[in-house]
């Protein structure tokens, strides 16, 4: 029963974080806010892309520079030239698997 309560609580707070801004921010936004929010996707993409490549997971995070970072750089090159997410994934994964085979 307590697990069902936990699931219900999780569902409600998660829905709130997803829905409240979109439900409350209706109509025209102030110019400064629109300009600010316009840069949010770029900043969020950078955060979500770089965290797993640069900082180790686990209780004691530290800077890392390993095969995932190299695969990410290869993916970035592919993204620059192709503007394609699928090409980015394919190139990045192939480079990652290739390097893993090469380095044993």
């Amino acid at each position, binding site marked *: 029963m307590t697990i069902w309560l936990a*699931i219900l609580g999780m569902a409600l707070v998660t*829905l709130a*974080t997803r829905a409240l801004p979109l439900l409350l*921010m209706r109509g025209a936004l102030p110019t400064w806010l629109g300009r600010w929010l316009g840069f*949010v996707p770029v900043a969020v993409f950078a*955060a979500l892309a770089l965290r797993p490549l640069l900082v180790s997971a686990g209780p004691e995070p530290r800077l890392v520079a390993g095969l995932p970072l190299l695969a990410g750089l290869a993916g970035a090159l592919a993204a620059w030239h192709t503007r394609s*997410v699928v090409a980015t994934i394919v190139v990045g994964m192939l480079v990652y698997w290739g390097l893993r085979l090469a380095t044993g």
Partner: protein
Amino acid sequence: MANTLTQPATAPPWRGELRAGYLAMLPLWLSAAPFGMIYAVSAVAAGLSPAQTVAMSLLVFAGGAQFIAVGMVAAGAGPLAITVTTLVVNARHLLMSASLAPHLRGVGRWKRLLLAAQLTDESYAVGVARFLEGRGSAAFQIGCNLSLYTIWPLSAVAGVLLGGAIPDPAALGLDLVFPLTFIGLLVPLLREPANRLAALAAALLTVAGALWLPGSWYVLLAGLLGSALGALLARNRGLAGADPTPGGAP
């Protein structure tokens, strides 16, 4: 929007957008599926029933929070602690939801709720990138959301059924699909100098936040401050940046 009520000879455009969004997320199934199964295996191991395991994927639909909740259940935490932790982990959604608002100005309350209810890091990223290209729509975003909302609960069912016979996706490197997706969306935007400033600021804040802040606060920190710095620097230098005005009516 208006012509969805009329009776067109061909399929209405929103249906094509929905479909396009759904299909655009298919590469992400590659990593979402194994992680959804691993979540289910660890949930059952932590003491959740099969029904609870699948219900969490259906009702919460937030990978990071679900993995953390399972760990907390295993450690004997109560519902309140798990709920508060989930709120903290998912606070980053506030920012993503807010940044969609300028693009959805003409969209009604119920459609906004439908769109917001299944927003995830990955579907938000693909949907908002389409808006930045000037081709986005509410239907495309909802299609993106529904795509992950298909595979995530299904993979939980598969995980419950298959049990421990599942290879570790991280061992295969499949966890790399997520950052590669965000790289694929980010890098083409870097042709704009103002976006480069915002991304650079966000990158530095991400590393600092990931090293010194708990959980996923780094997303909120980098997302809020990185974008603010980008907007300020762009204005002072007179650079054109990301255009938040909607390209096409949803």
